């Protein structure tokens, strides 16, 4: 257990824990007892593992994969020591997340170059894109960066106003051409604005869209292209925002948004609720996209960098 302790910042954990359903039995203890000294995990325990994972929206395919990993590992080395086993089981799941060879971020610091660092934020309707942008801008500001947010959601009623209010709260730059304007033009000009004003970061909002709407997805590709035109090599990060309450459909979202915009990072929102967002395990594994940020509340500071261990722990609480 102790190796996990150091990963735990109690305060951060508390935010994530809040509301997570607590069961009396510690799943890992149970699992450990059942497999200790054996080279095979018995059916009943695997069933339980399956139930825990499925109930956290991990999904069938990924659940099977995780179970196979654990079976393989236990077949390889027999475990006698339960506490050792305990951490190894967690470890297997964490490994699944780590297979894309990315380390978790330590904090919200950004690379010194390129400057300006251009981020584009995409996702389906209602996942919390604009809120995430507000919170991100706040964190970058805390890091001493100068930030502009670009109001690229020119479609949804009052979306521009919403981002404006966030930029006022944060005290960062705001670039907009108003409602019903061309989002690609807004993106292009936001980048220009960042360059001209020698800013460190530009974060560009986009309208929520269901990944099944091809013409809207094409529009997203176009927005990204116009960002590249404005500054070659940009955007440097495309963040797909996923709602933790979403089920297996998130996989399809990741697939389609990645196809349209080469998503490079995931942000998982609404983790302060009862949903656990387990679907990102499979997404991160399947598409090799790291999860970078998690949203744990509506307040401006309720955004955290993602931590694999804490996240995996939370699945089993």
């Amino acid at each position, binding site marked *: 257990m102790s190796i996990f302790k150091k990963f735990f910042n109690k305060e951060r954990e508390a935010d994530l824990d809040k509301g997570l359903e607590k069961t009396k039995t510690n799943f890992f203890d149970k699992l450990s007892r059942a497999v200790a000294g054996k080279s095979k995990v018995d059916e009943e325990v695997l069933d339980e593992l399956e139930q825990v994972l499925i109930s956290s929206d991990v999904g069938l395919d990924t659940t099977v994969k995780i179970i196979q990993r654990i079976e393989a590992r236990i077949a390889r080395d027999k475990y006698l020591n339960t506490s050792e086993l305990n951490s190894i089981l967690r470890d297997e799941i964490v490994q699944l997340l780590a297979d894309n060879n990315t380390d978790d971020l330590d904090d919200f610091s950004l690379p010194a170059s390129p400057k300006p660092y251009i981020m584009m934020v995409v996702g389906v309707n209602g996942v919390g894109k604009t809120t995430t942008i507000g919170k991100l801008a706040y964190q970058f500001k805390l890091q001493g960066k100068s930030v502009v947010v670009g109001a690229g959601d020119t479609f*949804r009623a009052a979306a521009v106003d919403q981002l404006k209010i966030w930029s006022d709260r944060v005290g960062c730059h705001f670039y907009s051409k108003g409602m019903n304007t061309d989002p690609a033009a807004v993106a292009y000009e936001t980048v220009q604005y960042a360059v001209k004003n020698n800013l460190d970061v530009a974060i560009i909002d986009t309208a929520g869209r269901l990944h099944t709407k091809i013409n809207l997805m094409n529009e997203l590709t176009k927005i990204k292209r116009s960002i590249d035109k404005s500054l070659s090599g940009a955007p440097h990060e495309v963040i797909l925002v996923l709602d933790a309450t979403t089920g*297996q459909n998130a996989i399809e979202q990741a697939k389609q948004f990645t196809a349209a915009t080469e998503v490079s990072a995931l942000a998982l929102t609404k983790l*302060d609720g009862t949903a656990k967002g387990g679907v990102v395990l499979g997404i991160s594994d399947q598409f090799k996209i790291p999860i970078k940020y998690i949203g744990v509340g509506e307040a401006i500071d309720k955004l955290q960098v993602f931590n694999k261990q804490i996240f995996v722990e939370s699945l089993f609480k």
Partner: protein
Amino acid sequence: MFESLSDRLEGALKTLRGEHKLTELNIAESIKEIRRALVAADVNYKIAKEFTDTIKDKALGSDNILKSVKPGELMVKIVMDELVELMGGKAEELDLKGSPAVVLIAGLQGSGKTTFSGKLANFLKTQRKKKPLLVACDVYRPAAIDQLSVLGEQIGVPVYKEVENKNPVEIALKSIKHAQDHGFDVVIVDTAGRLSIDEDMMKEIAQIKEAIQPNETLFVVDSMTGQDAVNTAKAFHDRLNYEGVVLTKLDGDTRGGAALSIKYTVGKPIKFVSEGEKLDTLDVFHPDRMAQRILGMGDIVSFVERAQSQFDEAEAKRLEKKIKKNKFDFNDFVSQINQIKRMGDIKSLMNMIPGMNKMTRDLDIDDKAFIKIESIIFSMTPAERADPELLNMGRKQRIAKGCGRDIHEINMFIKQFDQMRKMMHKLSKGNMMNMPKKPF
């Protein structure tokens, strides 16, 4: 998906034929497949388990499966029937008695409450000839009030708001007085999104409800919701005892298992389904269609209905006849295209057609796609347009030249057209769903 579930069940049940009895043992694999299908559709794990137990009992009580030529289909029918029954008899209307009638909208953040409020107001105004008033009670999220105001303007429904007032209970109460004074007969109260475990916010929504005593409280939920749907629906239900559920964002490709989970858990009807951001895309809930969707089947009935509300009836009848006779031709196709364009997002419409789901997934179906289709069809002779069977290689080559496109594109289009025609024809006969109860 439906095909594949049916096929997989076919495979699992094939070995049974010739045996004399269905037993727990020999049916286990099929039950597992059904459970997998449900879980993949985001039906809650426990509910999927309980549900398949019921299915097992039903199946064990039916000797017909063993005798059936297609035991898989019969099994799917049992699943379908059970799903439909579970999701609740008939679609229920809103209670709009009282002056004004009051509808309270509640749900999580980003579930689509505000958009739904706008759609409901528009629906009541245009379809029920009511005079609705929208009330902006989301005093927390930045620009939420503006959002509702903009929607209200778009549909010509006034919005009651108090920009400086941070007390939603008060705003809601005053709005009702305002409605009485100004002759509004329905008040729709939009509220802030809240998490079920946010005690303060849950208290607040309970207070709003207590204060305004709504005829209907509607719980709005994103149809893409996963396993957590059960927890959230129950937590809101414990506090609000809501009358109905609204499923949003159904224009995506989610299978919507949350619908089953919620109905199963709280037992309240799903009153509306909401698709798309256009304010006139609100539908009443049809359990049979949802069941088909959860099992991965298309939704031909919604498609035809949506078509009918746009086409005149004679035209719709003519179309239906032609589909039934398998005489649907390119002229019909072209003449529908423009009308279809008016019905909303093309792809969501296509997805309603069973079997089209897979095809449209990678197909570039937007309004521009029709330009291509039209160019191909307009390069045909009138005779060809009226009789697709005429098209042979020579004719196709001429058409390709005529529209300046590659022959492959012509072939592809014609192939797709044929598939669509067959599918529509097949479904118009309802070969699957109208299966006789006792065919043996």
